[in-house]
């Protein structure tokens, strides 16, 4: 059985959203579209069990410093959200609480994963300590460069979406 789910990937400018997705997906249109209309669509089939696959239709939204100003129409009908920040630039996660609150008001009741990217550029323990001190909770720390935890992130989200679909 195959089901299709829409997921949206967003975050501030330059946090590595596109690189993160490219690590996971090979199948995509030219990235020029994101420059033109602010979104780039990609697709990846994920096998969640022997007889079950999920087609993730990934909407890679252009980076913005104002999450509250994200085009509402691009978030319509979303089944899951990945919020990415850059562990090397505190400016991308300092206001994470407000960003997530704004996001949750736009996209209700869907699984949301918070991801700190560019882990290859820092010492993991130090980053975790900083995030803990600033009371910033996250689901994954990834590296688009080395591929660390990238597949885990998408595959776990795919599994959650399958469970959601079954509950419906």
């Amino acid at each position, binding site marked *: 059985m195959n089901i*299709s789910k*829409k997921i949206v990937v967003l975050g501030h400018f330059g946090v590595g959203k596109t690189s993160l997705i490219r690590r996971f997906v090979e199948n995509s*249109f030219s990235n020029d579209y994101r420059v033109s209309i602010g979104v780039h669509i990609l697709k990846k089939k994920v096998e969640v069990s022997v007889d079950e696959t999920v087609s993730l239709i990934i909407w890679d939204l252009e980076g913005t410093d104002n999450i509250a100003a994200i085009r509402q*129409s691009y978030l319509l*009908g979303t089944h899951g959200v990945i919020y990415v920040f850059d562990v090397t630039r505190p400016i991308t996660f300092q206001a994470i609480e407000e960003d997530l609150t704004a996001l949750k008001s736009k996209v209700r009741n869907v699984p949301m994963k918070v991801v700190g990217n560019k882990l290859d550029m820092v010492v993991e323990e130090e980053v975790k300590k900083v995030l803990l001190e600033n009371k910033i909770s996250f689901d994954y720390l990834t590296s688009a460069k080395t591929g660390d935890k990238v597949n885990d992130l998408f595959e776990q989200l795919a599994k959650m979406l399958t469970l959601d679909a079954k509950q419906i």
Partner: protein
Amino acid sequence: MNENDKIQILKDILFAEDSVYIEKIAHRIENLENTINDKQKFSSKVDPIILQQLEEFKTSIPITLGPTITATLKAEINKNKDEVVDALFPILGKMIKKYIAHEIKMLSEKINRQLSFQDKVKSWFGSSSRKQEIINELVESHIEQVLLIEKESGLLKASYSITETIDEEMISGMLTAIKHFVEDAFGKKNQNLELIDYELYHIHLQSFNDYYIAVILSGHYTTQAKDKVQNLIFDFFEKFTQTEGYRTLDTENINQQLALNFRHEHL
């Protein structure tokens, strides 16, 4: 004369009037029984009463039951708004199309009346008209692909295709993103992007409540072809929404419906 006979004589004296009265009652009951058992007689008595009640009922319905019926209908429509809109959309669409077609026909007839006889002769026998006809035949439009897409998420619900293209799910996502972008850009509520043109390809978009249909066409997309595509879309969507549990239908089933509706159609 025994005791019983004496009592009987006493009864006859005392209840003489009552016995006449009882007899009368018995007679009336017998008459009533006859009337009830005889259908014709019974109906002659009862029918006028029922008819009068019915007449009163008819006039009193709007006052007594009207508000209840209206409230129930309103509640039902509110509860199943999407289904109502989906069911009405193709019908209203057809009505509007019919009206516009009628108006255009009237306009065309008016223009024809105003054309001079010479113009008409030129148009009928002129070689340029024939050339145009041949060109039109050569570049007539063909349906290449039909996509049924969820309006909000952009997820592909079903498709019909005669040519191999890149991933249809990604096309659906991109089309939806473009549609959202254009509709947002002009900031007009309830207005939908209807046509995308590129060279000799055209994407006709028809929006409904929860879904939209994208028909990808090649060739010269004339008004006549557009009219036919719209009819095909409305016909399909009407049949689709009339199917029991259409929102939960499996893709394979809808793909077949799409193919049945759109294949072999010459525009």
